[in-house]
């Protein structure tokens, strides 16, 4: 079901800004408030907004349930992959500073933490969106 023209237009205009703000929150997790989880939630809420304003079919077109599954797995693999990479390079799980990059220890740790945050963000976004899909619509038995 669609909303009327005003709401649809405003939502259309605001969605990209919400998304870029979500990504901003994910990337600036270390230097400001926020991080992967919050950014993921805000990103998911942009899809929820699309679902509210244009109907769920439109939201599904943008990000389908299968894409959600895939993305949530990808995010988790990213997170666990970094952890296992640390083990491979001789550190403990999530001991970022052991990864041999041509950077100093603190920079490596920051970069790896960023990647982990991104993984968390992707997973949270996908999971939240699929929870919304599941709760909002009656699935056909």
């Amino acid at each position: 079901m669609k909303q009327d023209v005003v709401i649809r237009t405003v939502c259309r205009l605001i969605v990209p800004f919400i998304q870029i703000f979500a990504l901003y929150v994910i990337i600036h997790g270390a230097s400001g408030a926020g991080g992967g989880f919050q950014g993921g939630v805000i990103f998911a809420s942009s899809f929820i907004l699309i679902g509210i304003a244009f109907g769920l079919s439109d939201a599904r077109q943008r990000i389908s349930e299968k894409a959600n599954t895939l993305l949530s797995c990808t995010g988790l693999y990213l997170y666990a992959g970094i952890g296992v990479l640390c083990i491979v390079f001789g550190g403990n799980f999530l001991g970022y500073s052991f990864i041999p990059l041509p950077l100093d220890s603190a920079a490596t740790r920051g970069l790896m933490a960023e990647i982990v945050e991104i993984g968390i963000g992707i997973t949270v976004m996908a999971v939240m969106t699929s929870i919304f899909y599941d709760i909002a619509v009656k699935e056909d038995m």
Partner: protein
Amino acid sequence: MIPDHLTILVVIIPMLGAYTTLLAGWVKRRFCFPIAMVTICIQFCISLMLLYQVMKTGPLHYNLGNWLPPWGIEYVIDPLNGFVLVVLLFLSLLCCMYSRRCIVDEIEEKKIVGFYTVFLLLIAGVCGIAVTGDLFNLYVFLEISSLAAYALVASGREKKAIFASFNYLIMGSVSACFILIGIGYLYIATGTLNMADLARLLPPLYGSTIIQCAFIFFIVGLSIKTALFPLHLWLPDAYSYAPSAVSALIATVMSKVGVYALIRILFTVFTPAFIIMEIPVMELFCWIAAIAIIVGSVLAITQTDLKRMLAYSSVSQMGYIILAIGIANSAAMTGGILYILSDAVMKGCLFMVAGAFIYSTGFRTIEDLKGISRTMPLTAVAFFIATASMIGLPPTVGFMSKWFIALGALESGQWFFVVIILAGSLLTAIYSWRVIEYMYFRDPDMAHQAAVAGANDPPASMLIPILVLASACILCGIFVTIPLEVIEPSVTRLLGGT
């Protein structure tokens, strides 16, 4: 390289496995079961290796992210951990194997992918509880496994399961919140969350109200999770309406891990010096456990539904473990920890047998099972052995553990609890004899004759776990020294390790 990291791998592998299952189910639904099976197999091997390492070299410590303990999260494995981990993963392995054919009837086909995903998440949560040495981490893993358990209970086709699951969710959330408050109190008082660190910092504060409050919150919260007697109300519905594989899993794995957490908090965080000297809580535990044993058994006698009867019997079996914790001397604790093994084995076996009856005949009530032993002989025999172990007949593991608990009660001079243990056994015999009598010595009713005659022993993937568990009941009883070798050092660590 890898052997150093087994501690973390035992938690990470099921998580990865869960998501791999999800992906594989996306490609083809058939792939889910093998992946789940392989994951749990690997984990079982890891847990055995961990136990071996612990027995050889002493407790293992693992710091997450190379942060040193008071600041970072620490995973610790000592003999108790290793033992519980092996028991839990053994049972999960068998439950997973059992679930393959069992859930076909009980769960809609498109939910199977989700079922195995959540199954593995539950295992991950449970393993996390077992290995972690950090209180807040314990809470997080407890919630992961509980959330998975709610979802699993509601996954079946049974109508009432949903409401049962909801009640379980409300009670479980209350308990989790209480545990969270308790952790908060301890953190405010000491400024640390590491269990070993807490045990070191707490003794000077034993007199303060805040610690006692924290203790009470922990006890109440964990009592709800383990369904200790007056707080058991969520348990019968959840156990009896869940799909059979899930009942077997939750009744063995979830409740045992709750008991493990209770032991950990009581004896490692709050040392015996506190729980025995400062607050007379152990006495209270003994009495509650005694009431739980008797009331659980009496309620089990009044049931007509087989799984519901087993659920109430779970309440009473939990009483034995709590009784052992309450007596808190070396023999009783040995018995209690052995009882974790024996209860897991026999309850798992019994729930699986009940599931097998439902699978083959569709009967849930006890009266419908008349004469079933003629067509399902192996299942009936397994049921008989597990029941014997539950009653405490000599060569079984149930007997050994009850023997140790009674020994502990005698040692501490509490004759009354020996009487309770005996009375509990008697009541157990009453309610289980009824089932055995129906199975072996009655002819089927006219209405059910065809169904009973047409029944067969369940397919191999269900029968093997049942038989393995039934034989484990006897083997662990005969070769009881093998588990005792692990249990004794852990008991010494718990009681007087300091």
